[in-house]
Every structure is written in structure tokens, then in C-alpha cells.
């Protein structure tokens, strides 16, 4: 689909989506006809390495967002989805630059949703949101707490709509999730949060 990049500006709007088993179904709904939004979207999906390119290709096919595998040292831009590559952790440096690094797995996974989310900082003019989708374990719960603590917005997938509800449940149990939403609701709220470019 066609896209255009946003103009550089001081503030950044950053959305980090954490997804695991069953999350692909939800991503299909979230990104279907997803407009070009005024935010950089970081997607941390637990998946085998061989799926990385296909996931990027598919999101780009069904949405209006430019989508690619995140690269080390890359400066984030609005209107793009950055997919965390398998086998590396991803964090943001000063909410601006992607850093990929090889470290031990956290809760059996690399990339870790918690690692990505907890790297976000409270910075003037920046807005951040975190989303936890279907999955086993509790990856993302610590990240959601952190995002809330720096003034961000937090969502998790409504439990009844999850293939595996453990990750959203763990996030909800922290008491720091603003709203539990079905996939369609997450889509609508993210568009509203980011605004359309």
C-alpha cells in the first residue's frame, strides 16, 4: 500500500505492541486497513526467525504503514512499523534510536517485550503507549507498569478474545492497564491515540 513519511519534529509518539502465541490473529485485525498514523509502532512478536520477513510483508500488504525489520542504530520515524527481529533484544535509546543486542533470554524469549517497553523514557513532548496481546507467560507485565509510570497509555487484549490469555492477564493483574479491549477496540484506540498522518 502507499505511504508517505512524516516530517521530522521534536516530539515522538511511540506505540510498543507485545504479542506472542495467538497474537497473529489479533494483529490481523489491528492492522487490517490500518491507516498511516502519526506514530512509530514497535512490534515485538515472539516468533521463529523465518517468519520475520513474512510478518513485515503481510502487515505492509494489509495496512498503510511502511513496515520493516528494525535495524540497529536506526532512528525511528512516524508512519512506520518496526518489527523486532527474532533472537535479538530491542530497546530504544532516548526514545529515538533502535538498539539491538544479543543477551540472555528473558522468560524464555528474545526479543523480550519487557526489555523493549522498559527502555522507554519520560521525555518532554513524547507520548508513549503499550499494548499486550495474546500469549503464554507474563512477558510485558513489567513493561506495562513502566509505561504507566512514565505517563503512558496502556492497553491489553480482552481475555475472552485471546487464544492464550496469560500475558494480558498478567498485565491486568499489575493494575496498570488502562483498558482491556477486543482486537477491534485496540485498533480504534491506537488510531485515536496516534492520530492520522
Amino acid at each position: 500500500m502507499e505511504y508517505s513519511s512524516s516530517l521530522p519534529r521534536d516530539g515522538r509518539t511511540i506505540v510498543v505492541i507485545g504479542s506472542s502465541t495467538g497474537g497473529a490473529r489479533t494483529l490481523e485485525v489491528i492492522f487490517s486497513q490500518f491507516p498511516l498514523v502519526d506514530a512509530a509502532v514497535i512490534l515485538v512478536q515472539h516468533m521463529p526467525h523465518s517468519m520475520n520477513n513474512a510478518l513485515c510483508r503481510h502487515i505492509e500488504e494489509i495496512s498503510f504503514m511502511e513496515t520493516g525489520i528494525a535495524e540497529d542504530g536506526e532512528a525511528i520515524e512516524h508512519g512506520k512499523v518496526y518489527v523486532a527481529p527474532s533472537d535479538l533484544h530491542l530497546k530504544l535509546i532516548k526514545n529515538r534510536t533502535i538498539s539491538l543486542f544479543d543477551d540472555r533470554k528473558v522468560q524464555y524469549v528474545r526479543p523480550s517485550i519487557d526489555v523493549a517497553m522498559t527502555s522507554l523514557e519520560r521525555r518532554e513532548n513524547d507520548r508513549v503507549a503499550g499494548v499486550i496481546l495474546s500469549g503464554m507467560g507474563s512477558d510485558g507485565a513489567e513493561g506495562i507498569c513502566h509505561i504507566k509510570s512514565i505517563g503512558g497509555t496502556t492497553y491489553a487484549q480482552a481475555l475472552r478474545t485471546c487464544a492464550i490469555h496469560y500475558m494480558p492477564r498478567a498485565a491486568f493483574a499489575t493494575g496498570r492497564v488502562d483498558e482491556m479491549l477486543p482486537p477491534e477496540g485496540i485498533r480504534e484506540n491506537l488510531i485515536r491515540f496516534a492520530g492520522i498522518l
Partner: protein
Amino acid sequence: MADESSRRIMVVDDDVFILEVMEELLEPEGIGVVGAESGDECIAELANGFRGVILMDIMMPGKDGWETIQEMIDRDLLEGNVVAMLTAKDIPDVELDCLKEHVIDYITKPFEADEIVALVKGYLNYLP
């Protein structure tokens, strides 16, 4: 998007009825179905070159679904496949926690015909 030649799946289930149902549902959609009645048959198909979507039953006599996935990893046969688990259990097995990087989805039986067709079509999008 997966091309026509890669529109095929392997159903790994010791329940022959499930294999037949999958064929009836998916082949009219242009999706070829390979049946494997055990983990060993699945491994043999992979060793013979099958690559595609794999729907893997968990509870099978002999090698269960988790052990089969572990063998796929150990023998370097996982690459190029998209794996979803089939289960009759409401509560996920603990094995999923340490293998979740390798499993795209977890489908609870019984499933609706429309649901399984839509899910499999979705998984085909994630093949390399």
C-alpha cells in the same frame, strides 16, 4: 503472500477423523493437506522436504506434539514452517512457555469450520 505452490498444510493428529475433516474443509479452498498420524510421520515428511503450515495435535501416543517440535528444532527441521498447536485442553501446557517462540497459535478443539479455514489462510501469510 504465499504462492499457490506453498499453499499446503500438514495436519499431525492420531485421530483420522480430524485429518479427514481438515481435507474436506481446506482442499476446496485450494489448500493441499498432508496427513501425519504421529510425530514420527511428521518428522519423516519434514525430512522429505515438506515446508508449510503445520497443525500439530499435542496429545498423541508415543511422541507428543511438544516432543515433536523439540525434535524439529534439534534436527533443524523447523525453519520455513509455521506451527500451530491443536488441543482439546482449555488450559495451556507448561511446555508452551519455553517453546512459544516456535508456535504461532493455539487452537482449541472442537473448532468451527469457518474458523479453522480462516486461521489456516492467515497462517499461510506467514510462510517465508
